[in-house]
């Protein structure tokens, strides 16, 4: 026994150290993925008997207006959420100077990321609220007619995304600020000697060095956009009449909310959402793997 351990110690030790994390990952991530996949082939209310119905849930999904609304909103989220990356970069560069009290400004800009999404959602819904909301009053002052953003199917999704961008920009900003700290001063110096300034300096010298930060910023923003749930739930509950739903919220509505306990249908939505995420996740993994093997 002990001789076996001695012979294979080097080979076994890493697995032993990995085991606690790997087991957790297996139990809480990998196995549930396959469970969701299998539940999506059943008609099940969470209490009674689960009936196998094959791909019926997916067929129904293809013919479901609410599903397409959610899908469309998810795309809008993905595209507009990306604004957080350039916006965060700009603020980071703006704050990357040595002025008295800059740490206070930095923490103030970082503040929205620290507070809970629920609080962000509440604040923005008051901001938009008809009759007393700040934005509503402003619009009323300028155009004479207030717009209740969260009650209008055309604006509601944009209103929620604006709320989501606020903390997301702060997050991206902090990623870039740490990135800017690691910029090699000699390269900047050399570029300056060669006469690079302004946009040229940013584009050819600073940005390439920020690539790792940009990569992380894009990853967290894409994932943040796809799992946007709390803001939708807090600000509109998917309304008015379902026009601000996103896939994650629709899944919750169908499977777990007060009015629906269709575990199978909810699982089918989750599988679709997972498939969309998988496109991005495999892209990211592929890029990371390529970067590592190139070195």
């Amino acid at each position, binding site marked *: 026994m002990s001789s076996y351990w001695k012979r294979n110690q080097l080979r076994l030790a890493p697995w032993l150290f990995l085991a606690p994390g790997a087991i957790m990952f297996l139990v809480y991530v990998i196995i549930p993925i396959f469970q969701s996949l299998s539940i999506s082939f059943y008609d099940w209310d969470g209490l009674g008997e689960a009936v196998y119905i094959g791909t019926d849930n997916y067929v129904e999904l293809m013919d479901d207006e609410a599903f397409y609304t959610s899908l469309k909103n998810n795309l809008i989220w993905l595209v507009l959420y990306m604004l957080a990356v350039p916006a965060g970069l700009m603020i980071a560069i703006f704050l990357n100077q040595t002025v008295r009290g800059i740490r206070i400004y930095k923490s103030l800009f970082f503040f929205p990321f620290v507070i809970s999404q629920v609080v962000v959602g509440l604040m923005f819904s008051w901001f938009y609220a008809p009759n007393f909301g700040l934005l509503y009053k402003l619009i009323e002052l300028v155009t004479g007619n207030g717009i209740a953003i969260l*009650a209008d199917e055309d604006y509601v999704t944009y209103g929620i995304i604006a709320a989501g961008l606020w903390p997301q920009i702060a997050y991206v900003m902090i990623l870039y600020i740490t990135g800017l700290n690691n910029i090699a001063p000699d390269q900047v110096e050399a570029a300056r000697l060669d006469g690079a300034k302004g946009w040229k300096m940013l584009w050819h010298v600073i940005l390439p060095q920020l690539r790792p930060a940009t990569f992380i910023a894009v990853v967290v923003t894409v994932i943040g956009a796809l799992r946007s749930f709390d803001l939708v739930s807090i600000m509109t509950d998917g309304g008015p009449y379902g026009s601000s739903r996103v896939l994650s919220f629709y899944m919750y509505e169908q499977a777990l909310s007060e009015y629906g306990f269709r575990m199978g249908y909810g699982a089918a939505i989750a599988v679709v959402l997972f498939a969309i995420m998988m496109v991005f996740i495999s892209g990211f993994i592929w890029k990371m793997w390529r970067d590592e093997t190139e070195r």
Partner: protein
Amino acid sequence: MTHLKTGAVAFAAALLMSGSAFAQQRMLNYNADFDPTPLAAFQALIADFEAENPDIKVNLNNFDHEGYKTAIRNFLTADSPDLANWYAGNRMAPFVTSGQFMDVSDVWEANGLGDQLASAKASMTIDGKQWGVPYTYYQWGIYYNKDAYKAAGVEVPTTWDGFVENCAKFKEAGIDCLTTGSKALWPAAGIFDYLNMRTNGYEFHMDLTAGKVAWTDDKVKATFAEWAKVQPFITENHAAIDWQDAAALLVQGKAANYVMGNFAVATFKEGGMTNDNLGFMVFPEITPGLPRAEEAPTDTIHIPAGAKNVDDAKKFLAFVARADVQTKLNAALGQLPTNKDSSVDAADPFISAGFESLSSAYALAQFFDRDAPAEMAKMGMEGFQEFMVKPDRLDAILDRLEKARGKIYQ
């Protein structure tokens, strides 16, 4: 060492004995979803029950009202209490058909509840058996601001046509004729239920919520035609506000009428209204000669199938159903007792009006989201909200609901 051991044994024995002394008192676990006022009322009720039954100790686990609706599915299967709150009508059907609630017909039988709780019996009955005991209900109707009526110079209507005519005058005075806050969807269903029951009658409404009639039926369209008459006069941004926000509009006199349940009276009064300027009227007749049906959502207590202390739980149900207990409980709740031998506070005009309106009603509906199955309720209420914002989409909405009906009721 031995001394220490015997000491420990003696101590343990003492512990065990005191434990068995406590075991004389049987525990009754009760999961509920009370807001602060009802919670206080129920704590008083439980104290009375424990005084009458000193050998029973009721352990009340109070949940957040909204969270309870999802929590109940977990605790019924995982860690069942002996008693649980829920609602009457179709809302309890999923738990009854999946065998999560216990048949308590014997409690009804033994205590003569079929007679005393006659008005609520139908909504507690599935497959000819009773599955719980109702302890309260409340009326719905139109609450109005008398000052707003004065400001617009109109009389309180007695007919639907009169109500619609008033709306134009309210608009001139800058007052919303009808207010609602449909962010949480359900307030819109109250308006639909009444319009449909007044236009087509109780039986048609029940058939519709039970999925027996098509949503594209001409009778349904007739209901929406009545709704379209008042649609332009409903508070404009109702989809963005909660029912309490709309209540504020009524309190401030910016809105005149509100189709609501009696629980809203507390909110109106907190906002500063009094019995002098807050009015209540039964929803006016639309199709002449139809027997008048009302909304009266009923709150109930059930014994989960997994209950451990069934005997005492049944004792508790019988206690809650008793006339004197319901009188006291509902006085504290500010609602109506379901026991016909109970009495209500004659000094409260809203309670007396509600008691009058419900006891003389032809039939009682539970409310759209309790009469219709959950999925249909959700789709329907979204449709009502959409109709109130974009009335020109009616056909598309009804087609969508009809498609959903085909799937949901199979």
